[in-house]
């Protein structure tokens, strides 16, 4: 476990560092924030003061060194907009995004498993055709448009739900309904594909030869095997959601990390932007570890040798390496 963690940290650290440095440099390329935060008639002196106060007059390398020095002491800088600690702002926005992401994924996975399995029972049957069209449509609808249509129908015309905000359960309906579409569409296709191939495996025939019922074959034997490839894709989709659903959060005024990120980009609030990038990177790092653990739980063949060595004293056969299909 420790060596696994070490390997994970090493392989994630370098890309993360490059990303942070890149964000740091690129953000400063967007221009001097002074013009956004000072009145239009500000004097040159005021501009110079502002720039010097925030250390923006230093060479880029010095600024970077300062920043990373701060990060090592858990000081992530302060927001230009509010003067608050950037870390506090990012941490405050994050739960809203996580709630949205978690609810969306739970819903998407549940629906996709039901629809995908149902479609896989008869490949090319009527259920399969319907579900393949529905899932394609779901994956093809742009979220901003779906959000607008949702607002138009359910908020403006019918008045059932509020147009934005986080108050009450009704406020969740439209954001979740919008966000769930793409993961649902993608997952239905993955679950269906994995179930079709699982159901054609010899072990399904073996189960049937023991007299297992259709329900038992599907839920016990096929679904368990199909869950590993589905998990890979579900993991990627969750990563996308944890990064912040910028469009949906913007349209529905959802105070999440995606909205905070786009706001701080547009406002040149560098410290907040960097804090957001760091926070999501850490979250995604943790998420990937959770996914790896779940994967090992679902598929005994990828478990590290130590975990199963208790059971295999007598005659360890080499574990056949079965690589999961690369998801496109």
């Amino acid at each position, binding site marked *: 476990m420790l060596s696994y963690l070490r390997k994970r940290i090493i392989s994630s650290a370098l890309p993360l560092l490059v990303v942070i440095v890149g964000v740091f440099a690129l953000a400063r390329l967007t221009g001097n924030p002074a013009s956004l935060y000072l009145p239009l008639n500000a004097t040159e002196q005021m501009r110079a003061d502002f720039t010097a106060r925030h250390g923006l007059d230093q060479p880029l390398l010095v600024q970077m060194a300062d920043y990373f020095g701060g990060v090592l002491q858990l000081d992530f800088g302060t927001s230009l907009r509010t003067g608050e600690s950037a870390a506090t702002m990012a941490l405050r926005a994050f739960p809203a995004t996580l709630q949205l992401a978690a609810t969306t994924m739970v819903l998407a996975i549940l629906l996709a498993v039901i629809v995908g399995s149902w479609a896989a029972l008869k490949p090319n049957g009527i259920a399969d055709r319907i579900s393949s069209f529905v899932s394609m449509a779901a994956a093809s609808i742009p979220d901003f448009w779906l959000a*607008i249509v949702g607002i138009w129908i359910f908020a403006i015309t019918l008045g059932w739900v509020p147009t934005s905000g986080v108050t009450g359960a009704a406020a969740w309906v439209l954001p979740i309904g919008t966000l769930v579409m793409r993961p649902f569409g993608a997952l239905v296709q993955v679950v269906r594909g994995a179930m079709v191939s699982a159901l054609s495996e010899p072990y399904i025939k073996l189960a049937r030869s023991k007299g297992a019922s259709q329900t038992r074959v599907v839920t016990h034997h096929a679904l368990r095997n199909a869950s590993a490839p589905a998990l890979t894709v579900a993991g990627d989709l969750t990563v996308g959601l944890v990064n912040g659903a910028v469009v949906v959060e913007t349209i529905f005024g959802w105070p999440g990390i995606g909205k905070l990120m786009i706001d701080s980009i547009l406002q040149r609030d560098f410290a907040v932007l960097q804090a957001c990038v760091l926070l999501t990177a850490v979250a995604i790092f943790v998420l990937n570890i959770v996914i790896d653990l779940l994967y090992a739980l679902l598929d005994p063949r990828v478990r590290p040798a130590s975990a199963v060595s208790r059971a295999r004293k007598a005659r360890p056969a080499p574990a056949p390496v079965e690589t999961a299909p690369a998801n496109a």
Partner: protein
Amino acid sequence: MSQTIQDLPGTGPAPQTGPGAGARPDAKSNNPGLFRMLLRDKFASAGAVILLLVLLTAAFGPMLMGDLATRQNLLFANKAPFNPANGWEYFLGSDSLGRSVLARLVVATRTTLAVAVPAVAVAMVIGSLWGVWAGYHRGWRENVSMRVADVIMSFPSLLLAVVVLYVFSPSAANIVLILALTRIPIYLRTARAESAELQSRTFVDAARTFGARPNAIIRRHVIPVVTPTILTLATLEFCYVMLAESSLSFLGIGIQPPDASWGLLVSQGRQYLQTAWWLSIFPGLAIVITAISANMLAAWLRIATDPAQRWRLALPGRRKLIVRLKAKESK
């Protein structure tokens, strides 16, 4: 010593048993052309036809309706769609300046495709060549390439878009570059995986033994095998890139007025949602229909270009699957 029938000299390869036993058509004698197979799949052919129509609209539409798209007519502002009394130009309604929604949609088709198609093409060519190269040589080239892909993948693409918007001009060409750059890793990873698998195969080994140079092997043996997968992926990516461009335009960091893309039209119509729903709904429908078409074509391509699955498409229509046996006559 057990002599098995399969080892017998003189018994040729027999049809495999297993799923679809004997169902695989002889590759040469019984393989209908790609085009004829496409015609057999109603969904995929519909998708192909729609994509073709969209392409034709983008190519010739602006020539026919370019003037109409910019002609303002305040007397004809905010006309509702589907009213033949307004004339065919206003069949899809008009906006607050009295411009024809239909004409604006047609002109936006060109902008949308002019971003999506080059972005996909650039990303596909660079990404897949890079991936094939990295996968063929393995070693450090592969490692470095994969780390670069990781970095690009975890970079906030919104920030890139904003940088380009502020620092460079927010032209369509720059948006193409951003979208291409952020999608290169997709092709890179796929092409690398396939190429790495291929380079260990016997036929590539054989070519190497005969002294063929790496570039020649890649050109002759690797690229032709990888191409179908990459083309399928590109069809899917077209869908993704189009959605990404419309998202950027919707957020105000993509295509800028007076240009118009479908995503920008949705965004501009948003504030009139209560009074003129058609301004947002129709451009959005255009995106949805085009994206679904591309998806359906890609789904079909994926099966049609896979030799192991192609026979499925050639199967005749399924009649009654389970034939109930007649009760046996008593003897």
